[in-house]
């Protein structure tokens, strides 16, 4: 009887210490481990970009920008100072822009009809949309090349008016629009699936016909999805090498130019242009974050002002 009270507190203390130590380890991990791990992960992601930025300021000892020579602004001073580099970049931008606009428009319409309407061939379309994403790019590129070359023979030559051969910007565009549509459909469809249909019914109830309902209600609400799809399409297009390599003929986009040039040399201009693209992309993201933050802050401020106004109005009313 007398032993029990002595043992019990001892056990309790031991238990508490163990619990305390366990909690301490967990807390320490939360405090230091998680941020360290995050920093390491971000560093891992950033190394190649940091190397790219650093080497854009390099004056390499040879023709290849692989070894650090000395700091130089030469490449930045003349970023397109290589034969055809400027043209290749321009082609890349034009192809990316046009293919983004066309693929986003078509893909959005496809996504709308896939989520809206029951029609014959709907599930087949749903499946086919995935195929360009699932097929290896190199296979797609080779098939496209086969197809385009095929149009050089009759009767396809007459049917296509010879527009698809020889290869050029137009064939790159067709290829990019093709694979971009898939990504746009998938992105916009994801946004559409959670779309509250009753909002469209409400618009129609309030006197808006189908056209007005789309532009006043549906479109503004799926616009973030469409913009995301457009950004994705743009970056996929400007980045694409494999399919472009097969479908470009003598035309060059930036990635194709880099590939062609790397056999003889790797000038720091490539790193300069890479850095420019990176800066523009980061700038766009930052701008978006700032604008969203501002808009939210404004909405909050309005709500607070109106609430304060309503309180004042209530107080002013004589009882």
């Amino acid at each position, binding site marked *: 009887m007398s032993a029990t009270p002595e043992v019990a507190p001892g056990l309790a203390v031991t238990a508490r210490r163990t619990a305390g130590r366990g909690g301490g380890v967990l807390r320490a991990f939360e405090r230091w481990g998680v941020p360290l791990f995050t920093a390491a992960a971000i560093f891992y992601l950033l190394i190649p970009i940091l190397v790219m930025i650093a080497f854009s300021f390099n004056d390499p000892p040879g023709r290849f920008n692989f070894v650090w020579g000395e700091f130089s602004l030469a490449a930045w001073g003349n970023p397109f100072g290589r034969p055809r580099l400027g043209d290749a970049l321009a082609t890349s931008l034009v192809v990316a822009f046009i293919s983004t606009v066309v693929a986003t428009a078509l893909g959005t319409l496809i996504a709308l009809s896939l989520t809206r309407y029951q029609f014959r061939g709907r599930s087949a379309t749903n499946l086919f949309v995935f195929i360009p994403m699932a097929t290896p790019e190199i296979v797609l590129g080779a098939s496209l090349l086969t197809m385009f070359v095929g149009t050089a023979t009759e009767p396809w030559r007459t049917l296509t008016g010879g527009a698809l051969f020889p290869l050029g910007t137009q064939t790159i565009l067709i290829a990019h629009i093709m694979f971009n549509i898939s990504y746009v459909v998938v992105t916009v469809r994801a946004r559409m699936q959670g779309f*509250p249909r*009753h*909002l469209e*019914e*409400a*618009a*129609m*109830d*309030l*006197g*808006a*016909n189908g056209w*007005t309902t789309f532009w*006043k*209600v549906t479109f*503004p*609400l799926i616009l973030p999805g469409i913009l995301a799809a457009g950004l994705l399409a743009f970056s996929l297009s400007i980045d694409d090498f494999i399919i472009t390599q097969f479908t470009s003929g003598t035309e060059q986009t930036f990635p194709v130019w880099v590939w062609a040039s790397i056999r003889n040399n790797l000038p720091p201009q490539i790193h300069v242009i890479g850095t420019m693209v990176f800066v523009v992309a980061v700038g766009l993201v930052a701008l978006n974050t700032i604008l969203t933050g501002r808009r939210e802050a404004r*909405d*909050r401020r*309005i*709500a607070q002002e*109106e609430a304060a*106004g*309503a309180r004042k*109005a209530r107080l002013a009313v004589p009882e």
Partner: protein
Amino acid sequence: MPAVDVRLLEVVKRFGDMVAVDRLTLDIQDGEFFSLLGPSGCGKTTTLRMIGGFEEPTSGLIELQGEDVTWLPPFKRNVNTVFQNYALFPHLTIYDNVAFGLRRKGVKDAEVKRRVTEMLELVELPGFERRKPTQISGGQAQRVALARALINRPAVLLLDEPLGALDLKLRKQMQVELKRIQQEVGITFIYVTHDQEEAMTMSDRIAVMNQGHIEQLGDPESLYERPSTRFVAGFLGISNLLPGAVEGTDGSYATVRMADTSSVRAPSALVGSHADVSIGVRPEKIRLREPADRTPDGHNQITGVVRDASYLGVSTQYVVEARGGARLTVYEQNVERTTRAELWAPGEEVLLTWSPDHSFVVVDQPTPAVDGSTPA
């Protein structure tokens, strides 16, 4: 005599094999607060959506102020809807939400501003113009939805369980509010709900719906006091139903013999020419008395044993087993009792009495195979 505002004629709506609305015929008067009441799946929302133009009937005719609107799209009908989940446009401010309908009609900006301000005052939300729907409460969103619909001065306002998402206290408040607004604007309201109390509180008339058809249509009082089907008797409040056979008519009352050979009387007008009926009586209409007590002249009486007593505050609820085995629910107000000082205890023998005028008559479906009498 008020004009007919909405007329449904033999309206049928099928979804595949399922018949959602079955040959519904209905006239709704101008300026009326009309409710469609029923359990989920009874076809009330489908009916409302057909009036609004969101569903097309499989067959039948829908008229709005004398005009056939059966095949018109929603935006060509002079009808507005308050949706169950409010359906406010999240990307627009409260002002733009309320102004949406007027702008579609091309109303001038100054006029829009005047009417939006006026409408927000009507629903007691002045000063909310610049807020977004995400920044207001459920009750406020409900008022905005109402303002957004009413500002168009529709011939009919459709309300699809608009208070379903609100908590009880707010719901009660909004019921009073809705009735006030309806009387102020004088527009016909068609209100869909599964809450019988809500329908009774606000409506001029109620159509109780079950399995796609109207079980009974009437004002709240007649529906409650004289339900004509087992379903309505069970859906609106609690009913005691005693099956029996009609024995004869004595003046304005018919006598009905129960299974236990006792007999009760009910207004003969309600019995009509039926032979087998159930006599119904609401729990609060029954008096409990000592078995030896004298029954007031002409009142129905049956004897029974108290099986259960629950004290509910305003009243006490008893379950009494009648001699024939039927269990009756009885409410007794907790006031100074006329018949007895203290509560009845389980096991006590009692006499149940009620006025024959408080009896109602339910005629059982002639085809028991299609039994739609169990409330969902």
